[in-house]
């Protein structure tokens, strides 16, 4: 269990509380500047808030030694920076740093689960965008964390790679890992998340199953655009209400 209690940080977070459960995918949604990345960094123990606290399994996260925290929470930043031209396996092996070992087992397992075995010896610079996104996720999986926090892992991917990466995250969640992702594409959140947190101006506006948290009313209130959901459960699309009536 990963729980945020009354997180407060001037200009970024305004009293956000949420209790996240392992084994599910939670999506954090909100307009630009709503505090999504701040919330996620706070949940990962990387951002000190002015008030409030994050608790991991009923322990204050700030009391956990950094390496112990790093073994339990894997964080995937948005930028996807890799400064040196490591091999795919070398990149994945960085996930073992908090454990202080180079155990081949978890690295191999991570590469296999992301279908990267054939690419293991390729330098990162030769990968396509989709392959690189998978290699970066392999780094997180190799650390065998209980929680995966990923900041917009789908942003730079085409729809095929988005769905395949979501499949990988779903597999991790079914294995008992808690998955928390920042998502801009509301349809992806609606169709693939178990739960959605909607942030607006640093406040938690909605929190619940996607159909409730991302209702048309919430979207109009938070994003200030009139939108309408079409399609059935698991296959919904978001269209503009303005063009529909026009």
């Amino acid at each position: 269990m990963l729980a945020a209690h009354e997180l407060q940080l001037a200009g970024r977070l305004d009293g956000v509380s949420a209790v996240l459960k392992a084994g599910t995918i939670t999506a954090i949604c909100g307009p630009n500047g709503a505090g999504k990345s701040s919330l996620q960094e706070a949940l990962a123990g990387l951002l000190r808030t002015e008030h409030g606290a994050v608790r991991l399994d009923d322990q204050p996260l700030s009391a956990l030694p950094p390496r112990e925290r790093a073994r339990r929470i894997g964080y995937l930043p948005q930028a996807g920076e890799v400064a040196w031209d490591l091999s795919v396996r070398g990149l994945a092996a960085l996930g073992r740093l908090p454990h202080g070992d180079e155990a081949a087992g978890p690295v191999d397992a991570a590469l296999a689960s992301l279908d990267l075995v054939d690419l293991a010896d390729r330098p990162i610079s030769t990968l396509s965008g989709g392959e690189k996104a998978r290699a970066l996720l392999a780094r997180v999986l190799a650390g065998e964390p209980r929680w995966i926090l990923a900041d917009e892992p789908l942003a730079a991917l085409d729809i095929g790679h988005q769905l395949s990466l979501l499949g990988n995250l779903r597999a991790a969640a079914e294995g008992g890992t808690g998955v928390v992702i920042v998502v801009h594409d509301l349809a992806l959140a609606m169709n693939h998340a178990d739960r959605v947190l909607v942030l607006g101006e640093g406040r938690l506006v909605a929190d619940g199953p996607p159909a409730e948290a991302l209702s048309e009313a919430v979207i109009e209130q938070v994003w200030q655009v009139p939108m309408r959901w079409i399609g059935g459960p698991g296959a919904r699309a978001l269209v503009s209400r303005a063009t529909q009536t026009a």
Partner: protein
Amino acid sequence: MTRPVPLLLVALALAVPLSLLAGRVWLDPASTPNAAIILGELRLPRALLALVIGGGLGAAGAAMQGYLRNPLADPGLFGVAPGAALGAVVALWFGFAASPVMVPLLALAGAGGAMALLGLIAGRTAGVAPFTLAGVMIAGLAGALTSLAISLAPNAFAMSEIVTWLMGALTDRGWPDIWLAAPLTLVGIVLLRLAGPALDALTLGETAARSLGVNPARLQWLLIAGVGLTIGSGVAVAGVIGFVGLIVPHLVRPLTDRRPSSLIVPSALAGALLVLIADVVCRILPLVTELRLGIALSLIGAPFFLHLLLKMRRGLA
């Protein structure tokens, strides 16, 4: 992982005996008169000093490039070398050129001053960029003060002493210089190697490194101490020797898995080899006066740096 290490050790095992024989006078241990004295008092300490200084420069360069995540970084960026040079220049300014102790000691004090300033700044900012900018400022300040000392030199002799010293060389160094520089450099290289895992994590950016459990403040301290000890002691006994810290990690990187941590020890060995060879070349070139080692390495280094820049531009295009 450490594939280049045996290779470099073999190269060093070949190069060191050769360097002992090479010089203005080629030694034949069996027939040259006073061979034992030339070897024991001149060439052996000089070769060992080249190894120590090159090793420190190589390791510090590898660590700096890892820390800044930039292949163009150089250990000079932290301002330790200019700080040490300023200390030595102050010693020469006050006429201590003849003292074998004062120049290195004041150089170490200068390096220590630069490290202390960096430490003060490190306490306030954990970010890589502001910390490095602070280092560049310290380098600029020390450089300006060095120029000031030259322009206000009390006499032409002191000025010439300073300018010559700044060029960096291994001539007329002896065992005391080794006893001073070798332990400090060795400790520095060990500290830099300890920073290896954190530098590896930094490959993924600062935030990701913290998420992997890296303590940015601890990393900064390891780098200040490691770079300070290796570069500070090197400058103290040999003057300013540029480009080794920049070039060597580039030469070694393709032989490794490219992780910053697996670059530090091989870079130390390759730096030792490069400085040793460059010093031998300086010794045997048939010039009227011996070419200064710092000049020789910059003559090799500058075109290499240019080549590197052009290659990187092609890579981006």
